[in-house]
């Protein structure tokens, strides 16, 4: 029903555009009236005038549908003890009635056995309420449809009538459009803030069970300790003291990210220099997209590449020279991750190096500098800030990477700086804490939010740093 109504609304507004424009042109040529805006703007004016009130009302109806339903069916006559219900229970019952209302008016033969048993289980009062609700939905649907057709037509008609030599449509249209695009950007910002706040609140919940000092500074990570106790009985603070120590996760994350950067920085930077300064245009046109494909390979593919090919290879090589290498090593995960982020370094650095003005190269060559002197002494210093920016973006990508580590590193926290040992990362532990059948108010689950918040702040900091550096570099040649 609602999609049908929306379709009609689109058609109506399309027609009104022409009606408005036509009327403006008529005034101009047949009425000899000087218009104060371009004819197009009168078309937009009529469309906006007809459309916006209808959409706002539709949105309002949608927002308050629950309230209307409540007013309509949740009367004390059907549910005598309604005043004692909590909001949660009210919502649950309303939900149940909504489900019932879909099937309550259907002939019995069309119902599945499951649906029949739902009907049988419902009380007489509930069935009455469900029928009322079905009626309400019908009325609601039809009023929506009317709203979408009659209302815009009347408004559009009025708006068309109001077109005259005196009406200046352009500023009105531009103002409305400005509000719309402004609103869109605010929505994106609000969603970001919303995600951040939800992390913060759940993290605060977690810190009610676990002392933040213990979380940030203790070195033991054994979240299953929280699992063996029943959350409803409350936790003994001592039980949790060494269960949620963030430090081994941090070191694991940094260890694997460091291995990745040791791979990605030299390879990425050197290929960027080759592509930007040495490669002919043809080679560059072919090679650059191929390198960028590396970033497009799904991380899960890197994951099993690391787990099934790289890790055994490293183990074999290590053992042949007498080094004890575990089957799941930080090295394998870090290497695969490093390959994945090569294009972040190479592509961004290449762009930055290319952006160094040709006039600086000419200036250096004209002074008798060789190509390598020019690169080392003029181009790289000039592009340094941008290159640093690309490194930082790559690091924040490495820190946030999950899948490769889940598959190739380990789930066991291990406080070590030896890349040949297994290690686990923040992201991996977020995954493991959220899967499984633990209640939501258990610290083992809630720790995911505290970890997520920490990770978010870490990468945010890196990104801000990167953006600041890149910005500084941009101003340099202006």
């Amino acid at each position, binding site marked *: 029903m609602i999609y049908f109504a929306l379709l009609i609304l689109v058609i109506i507004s399309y027609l009104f555009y022409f009606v408005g424009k036509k009327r403006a042109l008529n005034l101009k040529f047949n009425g000899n009236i000087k218009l104060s805006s371009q004819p197009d703007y009168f078309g937009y004016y009529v469309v906006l005038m007809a459309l916006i009130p209808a959409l706002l009302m539709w949105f309002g109806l949608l927002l308050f549908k629950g309230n209307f339903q409540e007013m309509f069916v949740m009367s004390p006559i059907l549910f005598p003890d309604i005043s004692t219900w909590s909001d949660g229970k009210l919502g649950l019952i309303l939900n149940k009635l909504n489900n019932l209302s879909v099937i309550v008016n259907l002939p019995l033969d069309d119902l599945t056995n499951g649906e029949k048993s739902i009907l049988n289980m419902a009380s007489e009062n509930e069935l009455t309420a469900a029928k009322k609700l079905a009626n309400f939905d019908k009325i609601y649907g039809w009023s929506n449809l009317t709203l979408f057709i009659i209302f815009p037509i009347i408004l559009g008609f009025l708006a068309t009538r109001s077109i005259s030599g005196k009406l200046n449509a352009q500023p009105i249209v531009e103002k409305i459009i400005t509000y719309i695009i402004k609103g869109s950007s605010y929505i994106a910002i609000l969603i970001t803030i919303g995600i951040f706040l939800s992390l913060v609140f759940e993290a605060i919940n977690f810190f009610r069970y676990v002392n933040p000092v213990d979380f940030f500074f203790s070195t033991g990570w054994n979240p299953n300790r929280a699992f063996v106790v029943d959350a409803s009985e409350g936790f003994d603070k001592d039980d949790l003291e060494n269960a949620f120590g963030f430090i081994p996760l941090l070191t694991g994350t940094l260890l694997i990210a460091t291995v990745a950067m040791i791979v990605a920085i030299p390879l990425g930077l050197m290929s960027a220099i080759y592509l930007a300064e040495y490669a002919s245009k043809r080679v560059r046109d072919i090679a650059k997209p191929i390198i960028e494909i590396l970033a497009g390979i799904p991380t899960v593919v890197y994951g099993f590449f690391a787990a099934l090919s790289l890790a055994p290879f490293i183990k074999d090589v290590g053992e042949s020279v007498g080094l004890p290498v575990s089957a799941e090593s930080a090295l394998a995960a870090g290497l695969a991750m490093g390959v994945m982020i090569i294009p972040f370094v190479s592509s961004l650095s290449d762009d930055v190096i290319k952006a160094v003005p040709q*006039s*600086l190269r000419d200036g250096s*060559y*004209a002074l008798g*500098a060789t190509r390598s002197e020019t690169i080392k002494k*003029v181009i790289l210093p000039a592009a340094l800030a941008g290159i640093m920016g690309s490194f930082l973006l790559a690091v924040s990508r490495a820190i946030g990477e999950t899948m490769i580590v889940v598959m190739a590193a380990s789930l066991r926290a291990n406080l070590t700086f030896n890349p040949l040992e297994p290690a686990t990362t923040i992201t991996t532990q977020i995954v493991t804490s959220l899967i499984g059948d633990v209640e939501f108010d258990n610290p083992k689950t809630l720790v995911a939010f505290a970890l997520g918040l920490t990770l978010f702040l870490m990468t945010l900091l890196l990104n801000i740093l990167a953006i600041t550096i890149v910005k500084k570099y941009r101003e340099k040649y202006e």
Partner: protein
Amino acid sequence: MVEQVNSFAIKTKNVSVHYGNKMAIDDVTINFTKNDVTSLIGPSGCGKSTFLRCLNRMNDVIESCKVQGEFLLNGVTDIYGDSIQVETLREKIGMVFQKPNPFPKSIFENVAYGPKIHGLASTQSELNDIVMESLNRAGLYEEVKDRMDDIATGLSGGQQQRLCIARAIAIRPEIILMDEPCSALDPIATARIEELINELKEKYTIIIVTHSMSQASRISQRTAFFHLGKLIEHGDTSKIFTKPDKEQTNDYITGRFG
């Protein structure tokens, strides 16, 4: 005879330049006398800048560019020959570009860049001397002596261009090529550069591309007029601007085309 050979800083013969299939310079033969300022004039796209960039092989990096003909430095060294490295050549033939292009480094580092690369100074104090002398000769020292460590891109356009000139003379070239060095500058900065060029010709041979005919007549002893890739006329500036041999030159000088 020897005297005559040595009086030319650069001799060129039958020079042709192609960009892909397009001909940019067509059979140009011209000699540049030592310690003179020679202006290359002509309408846009006539090939004067292309020709200038052939002289220190700046066209080498352009893949589609093909240069033919004979170029002799001081009458003996083949500019495009195997006996001279392009870096050594550019040490002898400096260049100043149309748009000031200081490196985003300090003023000192900009001037010291060339001497450091070519190992012209063995100690820090020698390097300081070279930088000071070059800035002095470019008429910039007094203006920047208190802020040698400031970034060069913070200077005004005219100062930047004089810094580029100082940078070019810091490696002690014999010849300085200038590609419309004043076109991005205001009249006052232009006057300073012209004054500077006049002083520099005592020590250096200067070849300058310019769009301004009044500039050519003010600063140069010799003038060469290019049109459609051909050298139309070359001679003393006073003669070219008063009674040129070719009608085309006369038309351009008097503003009938171009």
